[in-house]
């Protein structure tokens, strides 16, 4: 029998990586793509927070003298037709994307959790109505639904967040409802009933905390798609209004007219969108594998 290097095998199994940073490093090594996703997301978040310090020009200042300038030392990513610095606009655009992404995920997630928990816990007619409503909502594509909503409400940051959040509700609610249904049958919930605890308190203290892991996984996975939806809405002119620098709108302004003459106007916002979505998706997948391996598909 071949000799076995016990130390090497144990190291591979993560034996000396049980606490704190060692554990993080071990997981990062095992989920390389997830770690890359985390790095991208971190850069994205830091950029959004420190946009004012990173940007080299004011993203809204029009400088007709330098309109459509090629990428150079002065303007790293060139300028647009109004002479605004593309690099600065992309940096500030991160802020919009992140605000919409986190805002809509948080809003949709919170309402989804409440609806899902109530639906799974109370069952009965509420559950029946919720199920049918969410069937209808989910039969429509996310983008179409958001389009109709923004068209009706008018383009503004809060409206965009709302429009993206609402289609998210049934997705989150369904996951929470399924988890709640399973947890409701657990003996520890029965034990709570047998000590005379009220249903609301059981739902909040015993059921909700045990749905956190799948919720986090789902929220991270949804973050990418909300960013993408915002970009799509803005591209179609129904998202963030002018003059705020949204990546989607930057694309739509330039795509038709300038794709041949000033390709940097298309390439850089495109890369920004892809990278942000790609990063959150990679991280979301790794997170799912670590926190909730059953959902691996």
């Amino acid at each position, binding site marked *: *029998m071949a000799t*076995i290097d*016990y130390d090497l*095998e*144990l190291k*591979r*199994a*993560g*034996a000396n*990586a*049980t606490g704190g940073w060692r554990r993080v490093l*071990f997981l990062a090594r095992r989920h390389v793509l997830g770690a890359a996703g985390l790095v991208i997301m971190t850069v994205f978040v830091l950029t959004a927070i420190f946009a004012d310090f990173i940007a080299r020009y004011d993203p809204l200042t029009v400088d007709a003298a330098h309109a459509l300038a090629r990428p150079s030392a002065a303007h790293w990513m060139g300028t647009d037709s109004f002479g605004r610095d593309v690099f600065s606009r992309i940096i500030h655009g991160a802020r919009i994307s992140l605000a919409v992404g986190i805002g809509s995920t948080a809003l949709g997630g919170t309402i989804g959790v409440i609806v899902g928990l109530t639906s799974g816990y109370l069952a009965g007619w509420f559950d029946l109505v919720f199920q049918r409503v969410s069937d209808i909502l989910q039969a429509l594509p996310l983008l179409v639904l958001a389009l109709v909503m923004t068209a009706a409400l008018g383009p503004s940051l809060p409206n965009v967040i709302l429009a993206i959040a609402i289609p998210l509700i049934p997705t989150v609610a369904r996951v929470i409802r399924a988890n709640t249904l399973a947890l409701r049958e657990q003996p520890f919930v029965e034990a709570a009933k047998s000590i005379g605890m009220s249903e609301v308190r059981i739902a909040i203290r015993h059921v909700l905390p045990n749905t956190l892991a799948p919720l986090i996984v789902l929220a991270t996975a949804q973050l990418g798609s909300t960013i993408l939806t915002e970009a799509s809405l803005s591209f179609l002119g129904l998202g963030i209004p002018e003059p705020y620098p949204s990546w989607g709108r930057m694309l739509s302004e330039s795509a038709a007219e300038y794709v041949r003459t000033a390709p940097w106007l298309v390439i850089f916002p495109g890369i920004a969108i892809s990278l942000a979505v790609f990063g959150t998706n990679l991280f979301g997948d790794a997170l799912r594998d670590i926190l909730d391996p059953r959902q691996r598909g």
Partner: protein
Amino acid sequence: MTEKSDIVLDVKNLKTVFFTNSGLFKAVDDVSFTVKRGETLAIVGESGCGKSVTALSLLRLVPDPPGRIVGGSVTLEGTDLLTLDEAAMRAIRGNRISMIFQEPMTSLNPVMRIGDQIVEAVRLHRNLSAKEAHDIAVEMLRLVRIPEPARRAGEYPHQLSGGMRQRAMIAMALACRPALLIADEPTTALDVTIQAQILALILDLQKELGTGLVLITHDLGVVAQTAQRVIVMYAGKKVEEASVEALFAAPKHPYTRGLMASIPAVPASGVPAQARLNEIPGTVPSLVRLPTGCAFAPRCKLAIKRCQEEYPPLADWGGGHLAACWRAAEVAEVA
């Protein structure tokens, strides 16, 4: 003494470890035993003692990673299974050595008819036509006393009751007339009246077919009623081995003795009932941080300084009664 050819399975110094993120698990540590034709060997112990991993090691079905067989030999009818390549091993599994599991529902494919599953198992190892294999399947179902075997062969697992499913599993395991059958807690998931039926069936078939049987269980009652020889495992090691009569008459290891004293007796069964059960204090140790000496020492009433420092060797106390305890000679007097 028995002839060498009578020995179906000869396991020597088997070692199986698991590489986990909390460290090295020595699940099976230097375990040896033999099984003769038509003999029942029971392996008893509590959860985590390594009895199931031993069974999986015999079939080379330990999940790798994290597990690996790192030493010893498993000789079945003269062939060391640990030296075979995977293809050769597959030809032996289900053919010369079969296994039945605790949960008959999950061990059967839910979308395949019972008969077809047996046919598949048979045709994997024997060059038979579909018709011939089907006949064998029906015959096997009759052998395990399933009523209306021809009709049952066309049914799906969910149409059978738990007891019937376990019978079907046994039929499948024995279809190729293996030399050795491994039964891992075959009746633990069953009700007591069904357990009695299944145990009686396994013993009858074993007698009829001359199969060697390794019965893995935690239930000393099942051991007493079925086995000829018994191995007691604790924390991955074999701590005692004896004939079933010798073991129950005079256990040499304090752990075995403690186990026997901790099970309640049914009144009027002839086993004296105690007012208070004899408990073994503490819990089974973690297989990662095993003490240098005897793993049972921290829970043992008889433990002396030597027990903590030095692992006791397996010594023969007469008639093939092996026990690994420094104080085995005094067990009967003290406890």
